[in-house]
């Protein structure tokens, strides 16, 4: 039972309390770039959940079974970035070949995610906190869910914001960043959760 409690705490902590975008600033590019419409941001969110969970799983296996065993943990940055880049590419090819419908839904977003520093960030955090395979995967999933929540809320606000009269200098990015700042304040409310 202790395990389950830990997992829930890790999940809530990563998804809400220290939200990957709003308090860690990881994955800002897609958060700002692909949040114009709810539909596309949901697609992006799904792709991120898929990739980060998978990447956490794979990098955790590699970290525990290769790097830790052979005392090469200092190589983790190099190894993780290459593994993640190769993994995203591989996933894209597999989806294209065997799962056409899923590829059509996620395909456009996959190449974008490789750059997403959130993927590398989660893998490094998992290694830093010495999470085991299960914890790493759950943490990865929770972080990605946090990203999805943030990007969908942002898209919802931006869709409404189109009808607003915004000063010229603040149109585009500045107003989106202010919205993100307000969302970050709102997410502080979750800090009492744990």
């Amino acid at each position: 039972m202790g395990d389950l409690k830990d997992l829930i705490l890790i999940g809530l902590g990563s998804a809400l309390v220290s939200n990957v975008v709003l308090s860690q600033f990881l994955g800002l590019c897609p958060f700002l770039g692909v949040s114009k419409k709810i539909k596309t941001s949901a697609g992006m969110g799904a792709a991120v959940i898929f990739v980060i969970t998978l990447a956490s799983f794979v990098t955790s296996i590699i970290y525990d079974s290769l790097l830790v065993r052979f005392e090469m943990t200092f190589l983790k940055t190099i190894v993780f970035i290459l593994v993640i880049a190769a993994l995203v590419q591989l996933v894209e090819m597999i989806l294209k070949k065997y799962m056409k419908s899923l590829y059509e839904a996620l395909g456009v977003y996959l190449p974008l995610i490789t750059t997403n520093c959130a993927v590398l960030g989660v893998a490094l955090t998992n290694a830093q906190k010495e999470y085991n395979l299960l914890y790493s995967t759950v943490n990865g999933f929770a972080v990605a869910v946090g990203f999805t929540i943030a990007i969908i809320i942002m898209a919802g606000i931006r869709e409404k914001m189109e009808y607003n009269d915004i000063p010229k200098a603040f149109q585009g990015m500045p107003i989106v960043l202010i919205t993100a700042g307000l969302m970050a304040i709102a997410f502080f409310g979750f800090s009492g959760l744990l």
Partner: protein
Amino acid sequence: MSREKTSIFSPKERILNGLLTENPTFVLMLGMCPTLATTTSAVNGVGMGLTTTIVLTLSNVIISLLRNIIPNRVRIPSFIVIIASFVTMMELLLQGFLPFLYDSLGIYIPLIVVNCIILGRAEAYASKEKVSLSFFDGLGMGLGFTVALTAIGAFRELFGAGEVFGFAVMPDSFVPITIFILAPGAFFVLAILTAIQNQVKIVGERKGKDMSKIGSGCSEDCMSCGENGGCSHKFIDTTEVKNQAKEDAE
């Protein structure tokens, strides 16, 4: 070196280019992750900026040295490995000699690997130009980044804690606006910065100047980063891989 050439190919010009013309933060808006996350104080800004500068300069030199050896098809993964090696070295050095900085920058040190600026410079400059110029290019860009991070860090520290570089500069009656050193403050500061940038752009365009360079490398849409001189998402060129797959199939 002839007169005409000095304008494009001189160390001084490269440094000025990085500091002013193509300032990665204020003009191109690249590398926003570290800019927001590590500017909670001026010291952190300097630390992050200088670490990035060293990585950028060294990786530019090595990439430029190897520019005729690295096959075009695997250049991005090769660049990444070179950059990641230097990042790892810097991480270990910081851990050994500046532990306080290592602790406060934390995960953002290894994340220098995915900083748009470094791969962008490798792709847009170091892989084409000679070693000495690539060195100065990296140095200039890095210093531009450092200046920007320090300025933002000092601004946030001034309002968020009433201090600059740890020295109290505000009068005692000043109540720190703590939000500035917290996460939302980073977004607000960046929002103000982009608004100023927009305003400069609007005014400049009214005067008929070419302002196409000023703008967001990353924030508008990630997909345009490639054309603006490279961004980290370029590190897997999907069309290349697809062409390769096509070739293999045939």
